[in-house]
């Protein structure tokens, strides 16, 4: 299911076009390239960022770096630049803030830090009620609701997940944004998976139907592999439904075909985990222990690997946070040490000056005192 989350990486992007060579401003160029060539967009933004731009430009560049890092599946950079962007943004940058909070929430979700996901998405949801958010931004609203739905879905809170999917769908339906159509289908697809978890198969099938209409036509703006992935997930959902209905032959047929197709694909992704899981469930229904054990083992191995990969990111993130904390700690220390040394120098200089002065006037007083005593 995690692949669906990755599809979201396009949620906050801009459309690229062929004329980027003529754009001289690196910020505009990076923004235009964000979707079509995220790697290049990141490099341009990173270079421009080093030239200490003004706050507004800084925020735009940080957003590009956050979003492209998300697209390039580099959670460490997403978290680094995303949080930096949030610290740069002010009260007027509500829309950018919401987008960044969404990306951060999505990233934490990808590395299974659900609590952090919820914190960021709750903040984003809170900002949605800001008077600065026009109704026309229903596409962004839909994205945040969608991410929240996915978060609850991953936490196995399917009732809440469903209510957020419905909210997201309503927003997408009223949106005229070019990406709204495919995101709507993503929402229908995951709504279907949630309904399957609840064993509400008839509604799940309806939702799946809506997830599959004209996918290719409505999503020409997306690279074709993402459309294919959407179709694969629809197939997976169908196989799951057949499995629950104990129609194992149909289910196995779909799943084995999927595996066959994926054999030729150079990319291995989490969809195979679910394929193995459903296959093992199906063979359990047919009392085929050997095949069940075989697919169960494959599933558990892949699951362990997925968890290990997520753990690797969490460990890397912790190491990054530790490093940043150390840098921050060094900055604080050097700031205070500088202030302490400066204060000591100032006070010591003043003290020495006053001491010398005091010694001088004391000497004068002694002389006068002696004179006075002579007169007494």
């Amino acid at each position, binding site marked *: 299911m995690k692949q669906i989350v990755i599809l979201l990486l396009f949620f906050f992007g801009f459309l690229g076009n062929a004329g980027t060579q003529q754009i001289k401003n690196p910020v505009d160029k990076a923004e235009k390239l964000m979707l079509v060539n995220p790697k290049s967009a990141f490099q341009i933004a990173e270079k421009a960022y080093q030239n200490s731009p003004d706050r507004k430009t800084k925020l735009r560049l940080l957003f590009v770096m956050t979003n492209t890092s998300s697209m390039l599946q580099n959670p460490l950079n997403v978290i680094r630049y995303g949080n930096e962007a949030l610290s740069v943004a002010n009260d007027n940058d509500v829309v950018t803030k919401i987008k960044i909070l969404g990306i951060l929430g999505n990233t934490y979700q990808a590395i*299974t*830090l*659900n*609590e*952090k996901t919820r914190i960021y998405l709750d903040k984003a949801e809170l900002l949605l009620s800001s008077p600065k958010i026009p109704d026309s931004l229903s596409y962004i609203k839909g994205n945040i609701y969608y991410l929240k739905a996915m978060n609850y879905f991953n936490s*196995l809170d399917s009732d809440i997940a469903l209510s957020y999917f419905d909210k997201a769908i309503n927003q997408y339906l009223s949106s005229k944004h070019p990406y709204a159509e495919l995101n709507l289908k993503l929402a229908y697809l995951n709504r279907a998976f949630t309904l399957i978890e609840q064993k509400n198969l008839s509604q799940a099938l309806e939702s799946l139907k809506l997830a599959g209409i004209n996918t290719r036509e409505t999503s020409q703006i997306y690279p074709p592999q993402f459309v294919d992935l959407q179709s694969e997930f629809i197939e997976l959902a169908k196989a799951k439904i057949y499995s629950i209905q104990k129609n194992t032959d149909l289910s196995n047929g779909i799943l084995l075909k999927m595996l066959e197709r994926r054999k030729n694909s150079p990319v291995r992704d989490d969809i195979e985990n679910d394929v193995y899981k459903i296959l093992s469930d199906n063979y*359990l229904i047919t*009392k085929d*222990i050997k095949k069940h*054990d075989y697919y169960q083992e494959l599933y558990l191995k892949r699951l362990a690997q997925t*968890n*290990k990969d997520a*753990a690797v990111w*969490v*460990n890397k*993130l*912790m*190491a990054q*946070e*530790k490093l940043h*904390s150390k840098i*921050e*700690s060094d900055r*604080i*220390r050097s700031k*205070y*040490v500088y*202030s*302490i040394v400066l*204060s*000591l120098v*100032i*006070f010591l200089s*003043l*003290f020495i000056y*006053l*001491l010398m*002065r*005091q010694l001088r*006037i*004391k000497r*004068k*007083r002694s002389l*006068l*005192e002696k*004179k*006075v*005593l002579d*007169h*007494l």
Partner: protein
Amino acid sequence: MTPDKAMDVIDFLEKNFLLNDDEKEKLEYLKIKSLFFQNRLTEALKKIAKDDDELPENILILKQSILYSLKIKADENDRISYNNKDYILSAKTMQLLRFVEDNKIKNPAPQLAEILKIARSSNLFIARENLLYLCYLFVNNDSNSSAGFFLEELMTLYKNDPDFTIVYANYLIKHNRTNDAVQIINSLPTEDLEQMTNVYLKHNFYELLVNYYSKINDFDRYNENLLKKDQTFQIIDKTQLSAKNKWFNIFEENLKNENISQSEKLGNVLWIIILGGSLIIVLVLLRSRQTNIQIKMYEDFISKIDLIKDKKPQQIQQGIPEKTENILLKKLEDFEKTDAFTDPGMSLQSLAKKLETNTKYLSETINNHKQKNFNTYINELRVNYIIDKLKEKPLYRKYKIKYLAEESGFTTHSAFAAVFKSLTGLSPINYIQLLKEKDE
């Protein structure tokens, strides 16, 4: 098998006995372990959230074990106490676990033999979790069949621990020694294991049964135990995910608090320097001011003395017969030798009467020959009288100003002080102080 009961016993001991630090530490260790076995990970994590340096070695080893189970990399620790066998064993086990997981080692037999050697003389209770992780790693890793001797030896060392028995039985099943495994399974206290609160052990037990029934192709029992195994797995998985989140939050909080605490400490040092420095500067300035006041006072005194010296006698107005004036001057000299001027009622009239003259002659004589009016003349006599007393009789220096004023004929001490200062340039107190210094 019953960590919840262990918790009750620990609570009882803590509430009813006066424990020393060593006993408290041991109970804390047991408490964390019990929480861990019960899958109460969030509570366990809170107890191990301290910095590694602040934790006793046994708890530090347990912390590393718990973090390992969550796949969280523990901090690199340089506190390797080479005298502590438990820590050495833990470090070596953890290292081997990482090497095997990352496929960095082909033949782990020498390392396993070394670990066994250390384990034989270590605290097995402390080493338990890490050794168990190692066992499961080898059981689930088919390529490492060389681990058999290690598992057998550990089963002997932990002969009453069902977890090691279970893992060994799993090993036997994996290596097609089902007959040997079944004997072990039959010897397990099945009912107790079903009832126990240690979810990890429970999960391992169901997993063993699943593997066994799969091997003998008994579908019904296989399915029944698979369901139970999946249930415990889901509980463990959900708790571990939540615990990982919790640990990340604790980690972030600790980093934040460390920086805040450092900031506060250095801020306090800066404030102490600023306040202390300011206080010292103020004190030095006050001292300077005091010295300057004294300097001014001495300068005034000296200038008055110089003024008196430079004062030229004024031309005497001749309104009074010379003979009368000489007699009056003689009488005044005699008067000055007495203490009569200390009479507070002394006035121009009373003195004129006393000297058998009139006030006009007396006033004129004083003005002409003493270059001052009658009041100044009397006050000067009084002040000089008291100065003589102060110089001659040190006891006078201890008297109060009020007494000195009365003694010299002044009706108020403020008038005395004012006249004294106008004549000497010094206050009576300063004058007495200087006299004391002079004598010293």
